[in-house]
């Protein structure tokens, strides 16, 4: 079990942060640079590509969100070095992004398509840069011992079914409380999956600001369905959730919030905003799994605990995602994807406290360097959402 004396071996970063992975990230600033970024990573398999279909034609807060996500991917302490690949005329300037990321004192290089003179030359320069960055990362790596209270743990549920709310989410809730109690930061979100359960979360808010944020963000999310003139059911809950026994978003939400445990909610975060306070923070992010994980990792999560009922293979570019399921059928059918089998909870062979201990031990193991199943299988998904029109 974890306590204040529990220590883990991590990467000590020059700015004082700790990382649990040492990734070389190749970040494209705009969709025009995706092919180049992906081509570089094909030649440098140690690197991970961070590509997306945004970075230009965006307005106001939407453009700010894209910049915030990409910046916080580059600055993330699981990333040891960064190559920024740009086109040259996009909204997010490759050199500006590189300078901001380099404020963390990690090595950052750029390769810009209009400067280098086309696809091939930019790939060639990028590959050369990556080789240099890898050499630097290997020479400059600093493995240190750190308290588990320095960890930032993200919480996510996806492919939910009847088992999520009655078994795997309450088990993760125990772990959320454990990490909160040692002073670690814990982030959960998925605003759509608070609909119908927001009054319970609001009761746990430490102050009026946190309470108002929760109610306002849930109302704004609910209004999206109203503005579309549709019943949210079919999207939330999804067809798989419904097949798995969940009838309404409120039923799904009441199960989903169990993963946040029982401690007070000390802070609220906009999408991809870094968590600053020890304890449990609520982030306004979609229920869509990849966008949610991305926001939570951009918020600083070193690793994400991901409960699933139906089974899902999803990983993430720069952070381990640990799959937890209490559905015996999913655990059997998708054994290669599920890290932790909690199906014993529903047969009476495992109690929630035991489940919590198993998950906490897995978090420490993965934080210490052991790969999660999604990592072993090569899952390196990346993606986020837009909140504005594409111009």
């Amino acid at each position, binding site marked *: 079990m974890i306590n204040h004396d529990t220590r883990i071996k991590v990467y000590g970063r020059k700015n004082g942060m700790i990382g649990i992975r040492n990734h070389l990230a190749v970040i494209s600033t705009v969709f025009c640079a995706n092919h180049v970024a992906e081509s570089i990573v094909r030649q440098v398999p140690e690197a991970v590509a961070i590509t997306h279909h945004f970075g230009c034609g965006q307005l106001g807060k939407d453009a700010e969100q894209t910049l915030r996500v990409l910046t916080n991917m580059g600055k993330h302490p699981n990333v040891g070095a960064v190559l920024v690949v740009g086109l040259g005329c996009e909204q997010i300037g490759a050199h500006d992004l590189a300078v901001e990321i380099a404020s963390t004192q990690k090595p950052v290089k750029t390769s810009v398509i209009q400067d280098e003179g086309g696809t091939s030359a930019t790939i060639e320069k990028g590959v050369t840069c990556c080789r240099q960055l890898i050499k630097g990362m290997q020479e400059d790596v600093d493995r240190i011992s750190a308290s588990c209270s320095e960890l930032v743990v993200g919480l996510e549920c996806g492919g939910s079914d009847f088992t999520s709310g009655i078994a795997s989410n309450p088990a993760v809730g125990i772990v959320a409380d454990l990490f909160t109690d040692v002073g670690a930061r814990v982030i959960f979100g998925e605003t759509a999956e608070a609909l119908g*359960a927001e009054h*319970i979360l609001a009761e746990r808010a430490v102050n009026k600001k946190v309470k108002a944020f929760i109610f306002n963000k849930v109302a704004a999310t609910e209004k999206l369905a109203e503005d579309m003139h549709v019943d*949210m059911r079919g999207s939330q809950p999804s067809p798989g959730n419904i097949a798995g026994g969940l009838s309404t*978003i409120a039923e799904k939400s*009441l199960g989903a919030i169990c993963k946040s445990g029982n401690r007070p909610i000390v802070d609220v975060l906009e999408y991809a905003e870094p968590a600053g306070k020890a304890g449990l923070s609520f982030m306004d992010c979609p229920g869509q799994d990849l966008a949610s994980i991305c926001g939570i990792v951009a918020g600083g999560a070193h690793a994400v605990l991901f409960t699933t009922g139906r089974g899902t293979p999803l990983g993430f570019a720069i952070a381990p995602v640990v799959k937890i399921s209490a559905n015996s059928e999913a655990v059997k059918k998708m054994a290669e994807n599920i890290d932790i089998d909690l199906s014993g909870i529903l*047969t*009476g062979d495992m109690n929630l406290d035991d489940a919590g201990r198993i998950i906490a031990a897995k978090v420490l193991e993965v934080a210490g360097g052991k790969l999660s199943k999604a990592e072993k299988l090569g899952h390196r998904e990346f993606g986020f959402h837009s909140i504005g029109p594409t111009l």
Partner: protein
Amino acid sequence: MSEKKAWALCLHAKDNVATVLNDVPAGEPLVVRNKSGQTLEAFEVVESIPRGHKTAVMDIPAQADVIKYGEVIGRSVTVIAKGVWVHVHNMESLRGRGDPA
């Protein structure tokens, strides 16, 4: 709790539905337990209920709250008798409704 008989979990004393933990065919007995593992009651289900889906543990009138976790999860659209399958065909969501009433 590992016995073969079909059982359902009733999460809260206020709940009018319970989650069926194994497929149960129409007319077969179902044991309802609470979170502590105590048996609350046993009755025969009216229709087949798939694993993980809900059954009514009391008669629910039309347009009444459907309660799970001790909270309102939706509203019945028809009368739902005890032992009937409760799902999207006979209950509606009260939240995220932008569709015309």
